[in-house]
């Protein structure tokens, strides 16, 4: 090689980020379609049907519509914060996917503290909601933001504690290592050893991604659209993309930490990873079309009185067994 060379690692990251961007966009389109179809079938109606065969192009049409729409800033809104919020909500997505082991070699960046990286930047989403609500100069937005902050801060704790239980057992925050320590068959996965942690994690994940029945920051029936009431076009589009990308992230983390990642019976590989992620996503759709939205006091009571003590107890028992056993 000559005196001038690009480090391989950099190329890997650039390619990885481009692939992640494509993956996120494609996923959002597929997920929105799937969600509307699931909703339709649960309510015994066809769901989107008119654009393309069985409506598969409906979300593509919606995305094009969003891209083509005018961006409007309400009078009296704080321009800087208003436009910063959607970008801030969307950008961390790339960081979430960086350490994600999609397959045996399909990891953009091996990070020893991959889990910590994801959890640390998950907090930025709350900040985005917060400044979107504050910057919009709209009471619904502000109420939504206030709810969002209280909810995310509360539910992040049991979520962390649930993941920590597994980290205690495996002694590593490297996602690839956590997968390596699990076997291919379902009874070799961490969910068998930590069923309670998985349950707590999954409930918190639904709350963290602001999904029904914990969708209080958006709560369309009370707050119009909550924190993103005032956003049009791609301002809303970025929040929307981020929401669906966040869903994929929490499900991908659940898959790696609890469900053996890309390992599966016969033919281990990325397809197992994707299959498990999509299965979990389907499980996330289901409650949305089943349960009514919880009230704010119920939301916080449930967290502080049930999830927190359970997660703590689970963690203590895990620690005790690891020390003694």
């Amino acid at each position, binding site marked *: 090689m000559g005196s001038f060379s690009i480090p391989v690692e950099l190329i890997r990251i650039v390619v990885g980020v481009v692939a992640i961007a494509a993956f996120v966009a494609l996923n959002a389109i597929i997920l929105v379609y799937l969600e509307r179809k*699931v909703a*339709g*079938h*649960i*309510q*015994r*109606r*066809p769901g989107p*049907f008119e654009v393309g065969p069985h409506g598969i192009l409906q979300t593509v049409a919606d995305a094009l519509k969003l891209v083509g729409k005018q961006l409007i800033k309400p009078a009296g809104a704080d321009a800087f914060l208003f436009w910063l919020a959607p970008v801030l909500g969307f950008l961390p997505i790339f960081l979430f996917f960086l350490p994600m082991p999609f397959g045996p070699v399909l990891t953009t960046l091996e990070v020893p503290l991959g889990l910590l990286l994801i959890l640390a930047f998950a907090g930025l989403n709350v900040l985005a909601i917060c400044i979107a609500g504050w910057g919009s100069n709209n009471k619904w937005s502000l109420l939504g933001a206030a709810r969002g902050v209280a909810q995310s801060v509360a539910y992040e704790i049991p979520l962390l504690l649930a993941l920590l239980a597994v980290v205690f057992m495996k002694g590593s925050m490297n996602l690839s290592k956590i997968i390596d320590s699990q076997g291919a068959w379902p009874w070799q996965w961490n969910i068998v050893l930590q069923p309670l942690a998985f349950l707590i994690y999954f409930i918190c994940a639904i709350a963290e991604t602001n999904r029904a029945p914990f969708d209080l920051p958006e709560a369309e029936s009370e707050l119009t659209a909550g924190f993103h009431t005032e956003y049009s076009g791609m301002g809303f589009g970025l929040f929307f993309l981020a929401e669906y990308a966040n869903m994929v992230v929490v499900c991908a983390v659940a898959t790696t930490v609890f469900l053996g990642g890309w390992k599966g019976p016969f033919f281990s590989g990325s397809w197992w990873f994707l299959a498990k992620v999509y299965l979990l996503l389907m499980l996330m759709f*289901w*409650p949305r*079309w*089943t*349960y009514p939205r919880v009230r704010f006091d119920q939301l916080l009571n449930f967290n502080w009185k049930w999830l927190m003590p359970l997660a703590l107890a689970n963690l203590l028992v895990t620690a005790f067994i690891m020390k003694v056993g």
Partner: protein
Amino acid sequence: MDLGELDARKGFFKETLAGLWSLVVGLKVTGKYFFRPQITVHYPRRTVDNIPSFRGPIELISREEDPAKPKCGACSMCVSACPSGCFTVTKKRPPAPTPEEIAEQKEKEARGEKVKKKAAPKEPERFLYDYSLCSLCGTCVEACPSGALRFSASPYRAAFDRKELVFDLLADLAERAREDRNPPGTGKTTE
């Protein structure tokens, strides 16, 4: 810990378990429905005719003896009862007297007798109904002394123009009679 407190705690856990179980029941219901066949049909390509409980636009009820004749006596109660002024009803005029009748009348008048004019038949000449104004409140149905009005069960009465929503109920009744889909009484018409 006294017994009351113990009972309260037991109640609390029982309630919690019952609550958790209700969540599972809810998921079971929606999960089951997910796999059931759809009920909603793809509208322009398929329509339904099985919703007799639907309260569609108002229509006239026919007489038992003649499916083309409305029960309506042209009393105009519905016109004044309707809060939105949907109806325009005109009564039939009395039939024009024949030349002999006119001669007879003149004779009677000359004799100083009282002349009795022919009464107008108790039937509507014209019965218009503006569906674009109707709120489907049912006041007209209740107000009609002859029981001549009812809600139809036809859900497909959409139009591109407001003017197309002014229905001629007599023509509508005649058409239904021709097509023999005109149940008398409270039975409703579906498309």
